[in-house]
């Protein structure tokens, strides 16, 4: 693994077992930044935000944010942190220091999603002058999460910031976490099952997806976002894969599962759609998969006997948290 030494982004893990351990590592890190007129941001649970702010005598320059704003989906959180960075860069920040706690949730499926996030940020935030510390409470978090975290961070913070010799490439982590099994919903009869051979059929597909999602009870925005995502993936299949491109949509208890399958070999790039493709970057890169990941809860790719499949999972209801990117 090439160590990202030349990146202005430093992604640290801080493992702690007591408030004292957290304060000992985090407070000097933040104070050094504030003393150098850098921006210091806290994105932890309320009680941890308070503890850290207290350690800095409630320095008024601290920016204290609720994690709810960020942790929607891995792709959504990437977009959220990029937006935060753009705001501070636009305001003139030379460097931003963030202490955050990733919201890992209770289920192994959620652990996997947020471990993906920890892997992806090494690439997706690499351009920013950001020193970021992810705080891991070793008394609360499951062993699997802690083990993965020990490989997902190129730096460790204890008394100082130092390279992590256990750091593994994000691509490898994403491969290890990749889904290969069908979603249980796929055992049923699809609500929609259509095959496309031409780009001129996309407009009809979009309408079919929207109407099917509406019939299945998806909110207006979930319908819209699923339609955006299916359109992009089907476009990719028609453009880069081998026709026909088959699109199927199944209802689940609380979600929709959609597969887009072409007869080709697909692509083998676990980071596809996580590398930022916004603004002027669109001059160099297609934004299709980035847009797809922003619009769905889950995007998995897999080779099946039928061909190359992209599977999209979309909740039926609006998220409690603000939509990543905002609704309008």
């Amino acid at each position, binding site marked *: 693994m090439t160590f990202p030494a030349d990146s202005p982004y430093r992604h640290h893990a801080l493992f702690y077992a007591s408030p004292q351990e957290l304060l000992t590592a985090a407070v000097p890190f933040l104070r050094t930044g504030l003393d150098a007129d850098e921006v210091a941001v806290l994105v932890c649970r309320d009680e941890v935000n308070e503890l850290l702010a207290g350690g800095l005598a409630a320095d008024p320059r601290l920016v204290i944010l609720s994690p709810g704003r960020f942790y929607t989906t891995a792709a959504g959180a990437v977009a959220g942190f990029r937006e935060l960075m753009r705001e501070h860069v636009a305001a003139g920040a030379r460097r931003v220091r963030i202490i955050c706690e990733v919201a890992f949730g209770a289920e192994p499926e959620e652990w996997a999603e947020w471990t993906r996030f920890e892997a992806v940020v090494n690439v997706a935030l690499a351009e920013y002058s950001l020193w970021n510390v992810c705080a891991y409470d070793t008394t609360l978090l499951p062993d699997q999460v802690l083990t993965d975290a020990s490989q997902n961070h190129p730096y460790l913070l204890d008394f100082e910031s130092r390279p992590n010799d256990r750091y593994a490439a994000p691509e490898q982590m994403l491969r290890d976490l990749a889904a290969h099994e069908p979603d249980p919903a796929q055992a049923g009869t699809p609500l929609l099952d259509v095959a496309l051979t031409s*780009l*001129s059929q*996309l*407009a009809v597909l979009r309408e079919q997806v929207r109407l099917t999602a509406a019939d299945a009870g998806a909110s207006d925005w979930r319908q819209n976002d699923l339609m955006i995502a299916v359109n992009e993936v089907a476009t990719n299949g028609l453009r880069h894969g081998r026709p026909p491109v088959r699109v199927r949509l199944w209802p689940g208890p609380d979600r929709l599962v959609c597969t887009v399958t072409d007869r080709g070999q697909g692509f083998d790039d676990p980071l596809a759609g996580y590398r930022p493709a*916004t603004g002027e970057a669109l001059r160099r890169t297609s934004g299709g998969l980035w847009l797809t990941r922003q619009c769905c809860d889950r995007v998995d790719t897999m080779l099946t006997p039928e061909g190359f499949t992209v599977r999209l999972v979309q909740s039926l209801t609006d998220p409690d948290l603000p939509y990543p990117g*905002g*609704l309008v």
Partner: protein
Amino acid sequence: MPRVGEDSSPGSEWDGHVLLLHASESERLSSLTAWARRGLDRGEKVIYTEGPGGQHQWLYRVLDVHGVDVAEAMRDGRLEILPLAEFYPPDGQDRVIDRALAEGFPAVRMSAEVTAALTVLSPEQYLDIERNTDRLCRTRPVSAMCQYARPDSIGTRLRDSVTVHVTGVRESQLRTHPLRDGVALSGEVDLSNADVFAEVLRAAVSTGSDVLCLDLAMLHFVDAAACRQLVEATGDFRDSGGRVLLVAAQPGVKRTMRLLGVHELPGVTIVGGRP
């Protein structure tokens, strides 16, 4: 799916210089008849030409189905089929128009298929005629519908044809309409027509003005390819200080643009629109 009807789109009253990019014969005939019929309904003269082996009997059939008495219109001179040599006379189409107006018609509509025209004209001559037609449509009571087969319209051929009809594009999913300081768009843009959208943008930023206004109120969908064209095709214009105003975008369109950071591009402003 949301489609734009003949009469629901902005600027549909003005037919002007229209580029019909037809993907099929049925699409060609339906757009052509709608345009011709609107002229006949208004008492205008419609002049049509076809190449060797032309299919004008199909045009008659479709007009007939739409309630036009073709025989009567031919007899009255309201509908005229000209051979190519008379449609493109050596001394220019101004003569054809002068003659039609002298017959007492308030306005004239002319339509030809580009492949037919190219059987008697060189591509350079044809492009000159297109530029002249554009002038006629702006300065005299003239509308021209220039029919191009969509599959043949790629690369420079698409660029040249869109450039002379930038506010009159009629494609399966996308239409453009005239707007002060810019272009109004209606329909949908995806990878099937992102090349047309890109040429509309390129032509629209090349008018010499440093502000381009795009009215998106009737645009129902854009995909990533469309946003990419918006970034690329306006890149040089914005790099040299030009500003692009995206006006009245629908919520779904605005969301896609935001997720792809279009609103953060230097020189781009998203203005107004329904909440």
